[in-house]
């Protein structure tokens, strides 16, 4: 078991280094940051001075090594665009993204499981069929379009909800939260639906098919034969056994929600790290891009590592195999 985990951690580190290397070698094609930093009246001397000061004249391996050395100590350098430490900027923006991801994930999970169970139990009902057809929209429409549609309907036409931003936030010192103000909560509704819709439909379809599978099993038939109530059969016996694959998918999708918040954040001008990253690409802010990509890959690697460990814990067969190797 321990050997297995250590091996997985070692592999994770290699993955991170590779991501960093790929990211860094791509930055050279993103453009020249100097063009964005200095105005049109700059001189050749200004350009050279700044290039030297930013270390852009160093060869690529030196730049990468410097970045890794600093990143290992938590120092991601200074943003070209904002002239502030990247770690500080990301810490400022992270709460917005994490709160949005949390609400989206929560919505996706509760609504997804609820609708999944419903459509499985009422397999041939008109409501279940309608939900199934509508869920195609969630799977196939691009996030960008869903966001714009929601803004148009609820922001511009009905004027119920704000069209952009995070509303008023409460600063707790180390965290800013939108959960404590009315405008903050209202601002969360549209972006979290936009961001969570895909996962919601995914979980719903997964729960439905798993439920249909389980409901065919013998023990469900026996439970029914025993005269247990439908509620008890459906929720205590059937649903519980569908949860294992759902938890796995949810774990992986949580990473996806955070990583792909970029589009939702851009549409709603949501002040999170995704919006920060889009800006960084536009302005060739290499330190911010590098830090963002590393953090996202650390997150994915961690989630995968946890899932792997969970498998071992859940599935005794893997544990026994692990002991032999």
């Amino acid at each position, binding site marked *: 078991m321990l050997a297995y985990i250590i091996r997985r951690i070692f592999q994770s580190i290699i993955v991170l280094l590779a991501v960093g290397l790929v990211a860094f070698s791509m930055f050279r*094609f*993103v*453009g*020249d*940051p100097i*063009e*964005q*930093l*200095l*105005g*049109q*009246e*700059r*001189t*050749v*001397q*200004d350009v050279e*001075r*700044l290039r030297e*000061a*930013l270390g852009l004249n160093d060869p690529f391996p030196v730049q990468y090594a410097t970045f890794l050395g600093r990143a290992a100590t938590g120092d991601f350098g*200074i943003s*070209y*665009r*904002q*002239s*502030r430490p990247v770690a500080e*900027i990301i810490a*400022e923006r992270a709460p917005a993204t994490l709160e949005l991801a949390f609400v989206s994930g929560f919505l996706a999970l509760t609504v997804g499981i609820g609708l999944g169970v419903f459509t499985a139990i009422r397999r041939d009902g008109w409501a279940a069929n309608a939900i199934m057809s509508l869920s195609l929209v969630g799977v196939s429409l691009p996030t960008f379009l869903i966001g*714009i549609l929601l*803004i*148009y309907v609820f*922001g*511009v036409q009905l*004027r119920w909800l*704000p*069209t*952009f*931003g995070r509303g008023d936030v409460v600063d707790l010192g180390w965290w800013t939260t939108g959960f404590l103000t*009315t*405008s903050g909560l*209202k601002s969360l509704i549209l972006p979290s639906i936009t961001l969570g819709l895909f996962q919601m439909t995914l979980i719903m379809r997964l729960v439905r098919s798993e439920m249909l599978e389980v409901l065919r099993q013998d023990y469900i038939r026996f439970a029914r034969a025993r005269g247990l109530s439908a509620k008890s059969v459906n929720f205590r016996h059937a649903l519980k056994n569908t949860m294992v694959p759902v938890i796995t998918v949810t774990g992986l999708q949580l990473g996806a929600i955070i990583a792909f918040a970029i589009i939702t954040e*851009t*549409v*709603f*001008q949501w*002040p999170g790290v995704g*919006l*920060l990253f*889009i*800006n960084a690409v*536009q*302005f*060739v802010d290499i330190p911010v891009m590098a830090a963002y990509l590393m953090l996202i890959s650390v997150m994915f690697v961690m989630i995968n590592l946890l899932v792997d460990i969970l498998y071992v814990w859940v599935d005794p067969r893997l544990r026994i195999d692990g002991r032999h190797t």
Partner: protein
Amino acid sequence: MRSILTVAILAAALPAGAAELRFATTSDPNTLDPNAGNSAPVFSLLGNVYEGLVRRGRGMEIEPALATAWEPIDGGAGWRFTLREGVKFHGGEDFTAEDVLFSYERASSEQSDTSSWFAGVDRVEIVDPTTVEFYTETPNPIFVDGIANWMMMDQGWAETNGAERPNIEQGNFATLNANGTGPYRITERQPGLKTELEAFDGWWGEDRGNVTSVVYTPVQNSATAVAALLSGELDLIEPVPLQDVRRVADADGVDTIQGIEARVIMLGFPHDADALIAGGEGNPFADVRVRQAVAKAINVPAILQTVMRGSAEQATQLIGPGLRGFSEAVGPTEYDPEGAKALLAEAGYGDGFAFSFKCTNDRYLNDEAVCTAINTMLAQVGLKPLFETMPVANYWPALRAEDHDMYLLGWSPGTFDAEHPIRFLLATPDEEAKLGSWNFGGYSNARVDELLPQIQAEIDETARQAMIDELVQITSDEMAYVPLYIQPLVWGVKAGMEVVQRPDNFLVLRWIEMPE
């Protein structure tokens, strides 16, 4: 609980007070340091917070600000400024002649992005507490025009906070904080997210509207900004995408304000190349007839009508009308595809030739669509452009690396004077003399190089204009660039708002009058 919630929702839904302004632009200024950024977004915002010795009025004319008067020092040795008395910074400090000297040293320092404004300045002297003299190497008639965005900082404040010099790469206190003498002071600054301003009661001036508090949010996605304007969450957005102009103009409760920017969009040629990067023998663009054929092949009015939706104006030269030194000597090139073909045949390229045509796709309004139209028009006269678009972050490096044949370029003269594009776009490139730094095609004409220093030093307006006219005629005859159009400006505003829109695209908060 329910009643409290209802009250809160009602309060949020009430219209904003007459004196609050909420506005959005696509890009946030990257700094609050007036010497660490040299771009329109920075000066537009900071122009409300800091002030210079002079400023620009509603019609772009130079008017007194922290200097009440100025005059040339005998024979053009420099300029003498008389300072305004009784001016206070937001922090309560007095504005003094020492602050002017400090601000000069800061703005012209090696670390500054604005040092080119003071390129010809020898020394600055404080004569008495209200008089400061600037001595220039040669007479400089447009010195005052060039320093309208040069902002005065308090020496004590900068020194106390360790911001004596701008720091572009690391940032310092002045990156996030500001202490000017202007009509608004910054009360909150979250870079890239939100900036709040509030009227400064101690301002010396009187010409101001009713806006007392301002919330500025950058909104990158213009569809989102338009939605927020339509829903009443924003009072002003800049820009309105051209395809949404009709929708915004027709909607209730909002209006558009349209004008032209001081930015001319043009095509550039590879004048000094031996061969084209697209391959083939020699450089056909070295022949003036080929360049003229390109100009005749492009139907600028049609592009303006379709791609720009009728909101831009055709350009005749590298600056727009209304700027200082605009020349009446030349008119627009007429669309004449037959003439273009005839010229090409005469030059020996009757069958056309292949060349690279590069464009930006995120720098100017509808740049990619404009270039697509131009690409088609050039093909119609038999030319074979290899059309390619790219983001501006890759575009400038490609042009600087001489990896271009024909290319698109937009130019907005910082001094609002005809001399500016001559210095940057037409003068023969010379790193030492800091000339022609954006003349990617290497255009070179001895007479142009000879006229430039004379234009720079000529005090007499009539003589100066005669030289500019001559130069514009030469570069137009030689078709150094093909001037296409002057970029439009479209703002979306809440109905009933009074706003002044200048061709520099600056938002001057003190001229805004919100409806009751």
